[in-house]
């Protein structure tokens, strides 16, 4: 963790270096991409890809020998363990209904769902949802800051990285482990959690890598859009609106814009 903080410092310093001057459009683009440490980030991304190829992917492919039912069980179990952190963040965001869902899910899945291996609650209408302190900070109005690629942990930004750090300390399971000298618990959980995440993303990442011409940029865009979707709880916040066609990186010729063609008198079929 100390290393990641150091990394922020380095990347934030690198911030000032590469902003283009003079061209207003180039500057707007630079700000929109908001990845001042891109060369460093790309280097770390390459490192992560290497790590994935050498360790994470082989281990996960071994894990994938197990039937899907079992892997889903593990996934559900890990999700159930996240309950305290999700609940705390539900409350910090003032989401009473979602907090209620989280409690109900825990009660149902821990008992009927056999210690969390079965997501019975979802079948009964209590759908799972994610919350973390990064999202809480976002709802409190904290901006994401520049994009950063963390070694091993992957895409992030200062807000979400701090969020991860805080979530670790919010988690009563970690307090318990600390106080009872069971340090292996958080460690094991992190490792299995990592394998589970890689398993869940197996097809998505494979597909994306094959179909992208700049995998790094595709991941960067996906990460931001997914986070915005999570923050708005899937309702589509202002940041997450599908882009307006006359937005930032505007086309030179307005007649070329699809939205303009259909505006005004053509706004719908006449009945």
């Amino acid at each position: 963790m100390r290393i990641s903080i150091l990394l922020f410092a380095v990347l934030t310093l690198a911030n000032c270096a590469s902003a283009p001057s003079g061209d207003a459009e180039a500057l707007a683009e630079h700000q929109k991409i908001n990845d001042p440490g891109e060369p460093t980030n790309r280097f770390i991304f390459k490192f992560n890809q290497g790590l994935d190829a050498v360790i994470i992917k082989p281990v996960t492919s071994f894990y994938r020998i197990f039937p899907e039912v079992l892997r889903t069980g593990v996934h559900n179990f890990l999700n159930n363990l996240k309950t305290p952190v999700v609940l705390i963040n539900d409350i910090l965001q003032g989401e009473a209904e979602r907090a209620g869902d989280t409690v109900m899910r825990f009660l149902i899945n821990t008992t009927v769902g056999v210690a969390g291996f079965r997501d019975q609650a979802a079948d009964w209408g209590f759908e799972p949802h994610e919350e973390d302190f990064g999202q809480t900070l976002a709802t409190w109005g904290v901006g994401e800051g520049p994009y950063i690629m963390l070694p091993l942990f992957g895409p992030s930004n200062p807000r979400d990285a701090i969020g991860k750090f805080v979530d670790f300390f919010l988690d009563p399971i970690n307090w318990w482990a600390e106080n009872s000298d069971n340090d292996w618990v958080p460690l094991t959980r992190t490792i299995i959690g990592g394998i589970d995440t890689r398993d869940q993303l197996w097809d998505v990442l494979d597909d994306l890598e094959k179909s992208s011409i700049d995998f790094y940029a595709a991941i960067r865009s996906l990460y931001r859009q997914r986070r915005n979707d999570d923050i708005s709880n899937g309702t589509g916040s202002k940041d997450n609106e599908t882009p307006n066609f006359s937005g930032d990186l505007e086309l030179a010729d307005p007649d070329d814009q699809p939205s303009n063609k259909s505006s005004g008198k053509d706004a719908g079929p006449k009945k």
Partner: protein
Amino acid sequence: MKNFHRGAIAALFGLALSIIVPISQAKADGFTDGAQKFIGALAIRAESSLLVEGISISERQVRFRKLMMESFDLSGVGKWVLGRYWRRASGIERKLYLKLFEDFIIATYTKRFKAYTNSKLQINATTSRRSSAFVNTQINRKSGKPIRIVWRVNYSDGRYQIIDIVVEGVSWIQTQRSEFVSVIRNRGGKVSGLIDALSKKIADLKSSAS
């Protein structure tokens, strides 16, 4: 506070809208209804022609291309994705790029659609904003949460055209734009760099498919 603002703004807009002639409201309803029906019809067509098992990859590509050309504003999207670099591109580059963009989309998405074989699209609700209708749908799977998909539809040249697909909050054109702009930036701001990368990718995809 945020909610208060939203409420106030919504009220203002509501007031403004009620003053504008009611005809535009009727028109807007016709537009959203039409867009929703358009997506519904497209889903049925896709189910019967595309999302079936036992057809070859090349046949799937042919059918997919036909469906794409008829339902998507591919050239509009292609231009938008290029952003400010569209202006910098020469006439030949523009032509070449738009053709490659089409091939690229067909090549990458044919495989993706195969994953949805035998799944049903459920249409939920349609909203409109500016000149676009947003058709909210979901794909229900055997296990796991349903996948949320929003289709952004415009009406132009006398027909409905899809200009974006937003899957679980991830916009297709947004992602494509970030990627393409990144490629251009890393190749000295030249559109020709993107054209090279695209043709190479399409060749790779073709050789791995056959």
